[in-house]
């Protein structure tokens, strides 16, 4: 099931924090955890191996900054390395003048090429271009019809040659090339500046069909070739991506079905083995479901750490700006008080359904449902925290360190909860505060970015009180989240 890498890494480093020295052995153990996480995410075996070697080497050379928790520092370096591996980001689409720019989509069967053609046409159309789609999948029954319908949906014309559609699955050699050639001529005639070719799905080991693609490429003069790849692909993604790239010299990758709960390691594998940029990700069956690729949220997703950034953004929108600013200031100084913490909690509960927020975490989809956590239970937690807080004296709130056993028992009685609930509450607060204090040495820009993490820390700790442990904030910077769209 879902395993939180952050949690496991924190465990690894907690063991050593007493001694304060990170040994090679510790790093090895941490790297082993990263390896497992990546393999669970379907990142290719070989890619994982090389990635882990790099991470290991990086970690060895690193100085241990005492004010930072080594676990988080390590995660940060893994995260950075992943982002690096997924970059450089280039979501531009090269066009030529005079046009038309010819784009060819290719990939295995069922990857989502036809739908992606429609999405891309819509995307380019919205950018002011005038695309023409070409139905060059003469193989699969009704593929041509599917593209025609998509064309209608997005308001982009489709070039179709019914006469060349395979009667019984046997496409004569050269038929697809002929259709494409005629389509490009048609595009010139009607002033289309982009031609998007939908090709039949094929296995990378099917020589005849791979030859067909090469023929289209060379004989038509294709400018851009995109490989469409299913984000749920497993270990084999490297084999197909490599074969397509070797034979066609791809220009970019499009990963589909990212609206699912897949961790999507195939993205990393394909990027790694082809060296070609990921241009877009598909996030839904509908024609709007295409997004320019951003690596940041993706690194977290692949590592199984959840879309922390998405949480932060969502939280940011709903937070009381003035109050937040005030808390922020204190945070920056490393002086989070219990009052601030409670304010933060109040803000968090304003988010409404924590369950919904939890569901934004990849891999957590349906998790709350599985655990049978109801929204009302979440609310109950916040109410309980509030009760504990209310039972504390002003002095105690100012200085929670003074809360010894008898005081905790008294507060518990007052709030109508168990003593351990009080302790847990204090612990949650301390975690947040300590995290802040450890940032004392960071520069302002760093603090600003880390601060947004802390906002989610509130959520995280709240979640923690339900046994969904350790979704603790890490050092990731605030970045665009990958919105989820559903039909």
């Amino acid at each position, binding site marked *: 099931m879902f395993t939180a890498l952050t949690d496991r890494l924190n465990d690894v480093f907690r063991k050593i924090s007493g001694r304060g020295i990170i040994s090679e052995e510790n790093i090895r153990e941490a790297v082993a955890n990263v390896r497992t996480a990546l393999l*669970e995410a379907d990142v290719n075996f070989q890619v994982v191996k090389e990635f882990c070697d790099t991470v290991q080497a990086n970690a060895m050379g690193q100085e241990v900054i005492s004010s930072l928790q080594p676990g988080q520092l390590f995660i940060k370096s893994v995260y950075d390395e992943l982002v690096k591996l997924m970059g450089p980001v280039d979501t531009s689409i090269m066009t030529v003048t005079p046009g038309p720019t010819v784009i060819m989509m290719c990939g295995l069967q069922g990857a989502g090429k036809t739908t992606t053609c429609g999405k891309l046409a819509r995307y380019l159309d919205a950018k002011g271009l005038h695309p023409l789609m070409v139905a060059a999948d003469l193989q699969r029954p009704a593929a041509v019809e599917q593209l025609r319908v998509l064309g209608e949906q997005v308001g982009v014309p489709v070039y179709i040659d019914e006469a060349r559609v395979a009667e019984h699955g046997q496409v004569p050699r050269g038929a697809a090339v002929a259709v494409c050639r005629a389509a490009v001529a048609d595009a010139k005639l009607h002033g289309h500046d982009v031609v998007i070719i939908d090709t039949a799905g094929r296995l990378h080991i099917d020589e005849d069909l791979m030859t067909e693609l090469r023929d289209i490429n060379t004989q038509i003069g294709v400018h851009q070739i995109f490989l469409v790849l299913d984000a*749920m692909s497993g270990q084999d*993604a490297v084999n197909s991506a*490599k074969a397509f790239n070797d034979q066609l010299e791809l220009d970019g990758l499009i990963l589909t079905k990212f609206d*699912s709960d897949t961790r999507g390691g195939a993205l990393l594998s394909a990027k790694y083995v082809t060296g070609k940029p990921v241009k877009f990700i598909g996030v839904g069956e509908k024609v709007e479901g295409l997004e320019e690729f951003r690596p940041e949220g993706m690194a977290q997703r692949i590592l199984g750490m959840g879309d922390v950034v998405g949480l932060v953004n969502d939280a940011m929108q709903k937070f009381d700006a003035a109050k937040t600013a005030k808390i922020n200031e204190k945070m920056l100084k490393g002086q989070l008080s219990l009052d601030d913490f409670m304010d933060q909690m109040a803000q968090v509960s304003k988010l409404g359904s924590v369950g919904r927020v939890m569901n934004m975490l990849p891999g957590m989809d349906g998790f709350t449902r599985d655990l049978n956590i109801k929204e009302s239970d979440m609310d109950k937690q916040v109410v309980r925290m509030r009760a504990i807080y209310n039972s504390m004296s002003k002095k105690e709130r100012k200085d929670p360190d003074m809360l010894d056993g008898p005081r905790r028992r008294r507060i518990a009685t007052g709030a109508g909860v168990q003593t351990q609930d009080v302790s847990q509450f204090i612990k949650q607060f301390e975690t947040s505060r300590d995290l802040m204090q450890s940032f004392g040495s960071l520069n302002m820009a760093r603090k600003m970015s880390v601060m947004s993490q802390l906002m989610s820390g509130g959520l995280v700790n709240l979640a923690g009180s339900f046994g969904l442990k350790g979704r603790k904030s890490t050092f990731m910077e605030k970045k665009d989240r990958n919105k989820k769209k559903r039909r």
Partner: protein
Amino acid sequence: MGFFSKTIDKLKGALKKTATVLSTDVRTLFVPGRQIDDQFLSELEERFLRADMGIQNVDRIVNELRDRWRLGKIKDASECLGIVKEQLGANWPKQDRELRLAPSGPTVILVAGINGTGKTTSIAKLAWLLKNEMKKSVMVCASDTFRAAAVEQLSIWAQRIGVDIVKHKMGADPAAVAYDACESAKARGIDILIIDTAGRLHTQENLMRELTKIRDVVARRIPGAPHEVLLVLDATTGQNALAQAKNFSLAIGVTGIVLAKLDGTAKGGVIFAIRDQLSIPVKFVGLGETPQDIETFDPVRFIDALFGGEKAAA
């Protein structure tokens, strides 16, 4: 009912294809006389991981072998092969892999899966198999009324294979189509009704409920139906297949898996985890794009293929 797989095993044509695709090349790893050592175990691990068997599963198997080796119980690589094959193969009793047919009246097979796994093509294959090899009267039902040209696609297959089809317009209620198909199958005395459904992600709750509704409608029209609920998985899928199997099972009670696209270079090793954790057997494998490219699942051959050498990309 037990005769089903035997009948298919006679299909020479399809078998030939598997023989070449799922090559049984265990020589690279299990060289005769090779001693077990850490190197061997890590190669074995790699082979398993590459087959999408999942790190947890692989760890378990490899650790067990390592333990036995350390205790001196095994020392030759070939002993390993035997143990592994036995372990992996233990869970696939023959009766689990056979199609369940209704004792009387139409047998209903409901087919589902996420987008693009090969549902419609697999239905064409099943229809072909049942019609030509089992001499059954077959009807297909176009309950994918969502994806562009889905109805058209199934219609073309039905026509090519020569089986009946029940269809509505695009956008129609898929459960209503299934309802009509059930009535029609009964009226015409059809042996087997196969229902195509729209691809959907297992995480889309509303769409999963729609599937449940189709299932319920079918169950009300024909007692004991659906007799089979087949989940079509794409063999190239990684660990997410487990989540798919789980959620589809929750929604419609999956009785078997069709593992499509096994003619590529992917091995589909995730089915072992699905078998272990969810007790769902694999019933058929898809090996190409024509109706004849189907076979009943053969665990022995499948496991052999796991150890086969990586096919070099062309």
